[in-house]
């Protein structure tokens, strides 16, 4: 799509279109700003020119990081065209979309799994079918779409959660009774007004994700969900556990997903190992006691396979339930028709769980909104 343009401004406009093709969100307004900015700088100097366009055209960290490469790519291609005739035919640049790279980590993760069924791939049309599909059976080709859906879903879920308190528009309602009382000392002159407003009851969420071996097939999706959800919902603490508990809120918050995933994998050796749910939950009670209160909903993603101390698990669950508003246990295995929660760990935990539900596909994640 790069054809040689003779004037600088035309080239810039074309460069913007090139960026747009690469996933940058640019409108005519940004193009205009870019052109405007030229009058202030010495654009014959390449570095300054690049810096200026970078400052004007990038809108996020992701775009900033990609910019240099794309800039070089574009102008190099352009220089090649300089010897050719003006109005040359369009020269397509073949580059694999950068988007793909970001899912590499996930794909390799999933590639290790044997559950991918080739025959199924052809018959599945993306869209509604995908939301019904078990996470463990998602063909690699559909990953992107699934991730997109997860992102969209988490946005919707958080909006749903937020709506509860944004609805009260009358923030400053005068409180007549308290006003009268307060102003007795001024001889009944209404000098100070007391206000009442609906108390913002912000629900806090604690997400706990089991990352032990038995959860391997689902972890990538759940992490993606937690990652996306954390981005859009403010009051959230995210933990991962296998034999011990780890707070990953910050880690997910400060990096983009592939980096976060890589970091998580590299820094934790007991991931994909055994499970000590009891000990991990006890960690939550002991070390993060301040997080638990009656406005907190605790969501646990786990299959309940536990190699630790079962009575201990029971005790921790009891404390958590007592101290929080609600405990939701989402079990990926519960999606199978024949499933019954007879694993020892699951059985021990069940009495202290308010909602027990499956979480094996998108549809089930969507239902999460109902219980929050």
């Amino acid at each position: 799509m790069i054809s040689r343009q003779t004037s600088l401004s035309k080239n810039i406009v074309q460069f913007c279109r090139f960026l747009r093709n690469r996933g940058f969100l640019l409108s005519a307004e940004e193009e205009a700003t870019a052109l405007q900015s030229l009058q202030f700088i010495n654009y014959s100097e390449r570095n300054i020119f690049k810096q200026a366009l970078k400052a004007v055209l990038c809108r996020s960290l992701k775009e900033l990081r990609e910019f240099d490469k794309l800039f070089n790519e574009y102008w190099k291609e352009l220089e090649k065209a300089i010897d050719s005739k003006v109005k040359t035919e369009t020269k397509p640049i073949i580059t694999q979309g950068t988007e793909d790279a970001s899912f590499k980590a996930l794909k390799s993760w999933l590639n290790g799994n044997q559950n991918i069924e080739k025959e199924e791939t052809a018959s599945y049309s993306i869209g509604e079918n995908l939301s019904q599909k078990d996470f463990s059976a998602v063909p690699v080709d559909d990953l992107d779409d699934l991730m997109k859906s997860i992102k969209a879903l988490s946005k919707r879920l958080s909006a749903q959660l937020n709506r509860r308190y944004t609805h009260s528009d009358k923030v400053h309602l005068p409180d007549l009774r308290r006003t009268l009382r307060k102003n007795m000392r001024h001889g009944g002159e209404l000098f100070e007004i007391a206000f009442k407003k609906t108390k913002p009851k912000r629900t806090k969420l604690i997400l706990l994700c089991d990352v032990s071996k038995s959860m391997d097939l689902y972890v990538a999706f759940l992490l993606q969900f937690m990652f996306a959800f954390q981005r859009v919902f403010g009051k959230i603490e995210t933990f991962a556990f296998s034999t011990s508990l780890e707070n990953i809120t910050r880690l997910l918050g400060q990096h983009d997903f592939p980096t976060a995933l890589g970091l998580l994998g590299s820094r934790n050796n007991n991931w994909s190992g055994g499970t000590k749910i009891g000990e991990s939950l006890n960690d939550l009670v002991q070390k993060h006691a301040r997080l638990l209160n009656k406005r907190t909903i605790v969501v646990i993603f786990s299959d309940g396979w536990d190699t630790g101390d079962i009575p201990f698990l029971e005790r921790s669950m009891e404390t958590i339930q007592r101290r929080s508003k609600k405990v939701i246990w989402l079990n990926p295995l519960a999606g199978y028709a024949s499933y019954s929660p007879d694993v020892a760990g699951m059985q021990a935990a069940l009495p202290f769980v308010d909602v027990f539900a499956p979480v094996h596909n998108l549809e089930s994640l969507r239902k999460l909104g109902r219980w929050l």
Partner: protein
Amino acid sequence: MEKNSYKISLSDIKKMLDEQVYIADDGVCMSVFLSLQLNKPLLIEGPAGVGKTEIAKVMAKAMQTDLIRMQCYEGLDATHAIYEWNYQRQLLHLKMVEHSGQSVDEKEKTIFSQDFLMKRPLLQAITHHRKAVLLIDEVDRSDEEFESYLLEVLSDWQITIPETGTIKATHIPQVILTGNRTRELSEGLRRRCLYLYIDYPDFEKEWLIVKSKVPGIDQKLGVEICRFMQTLRNIKLEKPPGIAETLDWAMALSALHIDYLDKKTVEQTLGVVLKDWKDTRQVQMSLSELFESAGIKSKIDDL
């Protein structure tokens, strides 16, 4: 007209920042320069303690104007950000003119005038007597509703007060927004602004900053501190230390007349650098490795 009053070049900006002892790379200079020239807000993101807020302060100083700061927090609403009527004063005024025989209309006019308006940062910034720098700090902490309101103000540069009408900006302020990426900001807000990301500085830049901000520091100590900080940021900490911590540490050690870094000193003063007990523990345990990878020779080890 306003544009002409700020006829400055890119190199002027660099000089201005230099004069205010703010070590900035080309990207920062360009963003600041263009946001000044194009009259666009500048959105700065980056980890804590890398000097995002500092840019606004430095810009205000460099432009020799006032800095109006608005700290965002959850639940920030219009009355705290824009304006509020001074109810008590209105009431007192009415009491005083009770028997003056003014008509209701007249009274109403007086009590809903400028005198009774309490300006909050946003209104202050657009009605300031000269072009001010408006710093909207940690904008990602505010609620989404507030963000949309901000959008409106940032594009129209006017605020409507139901009782008196619309107030237009006398001078469009230079707006700096900062964020820690605790929440994804809306696309709309992003598009109104120029975007700048400031990361932790590399060794050279950090050493330069330390040198200029802590003038009396011993060369060896300073280099070692910066090396150590660089290594510290490479290991995964809950709260990685920013430049502010480096400077604090450098100042503390310099005040103690220490001229090289050893384990004991580090252990004793770690509280200046790390603010999370888990981090502290982690660093204490791996201190030797840290020293090694930072390339600092410990004198005790030599013995």
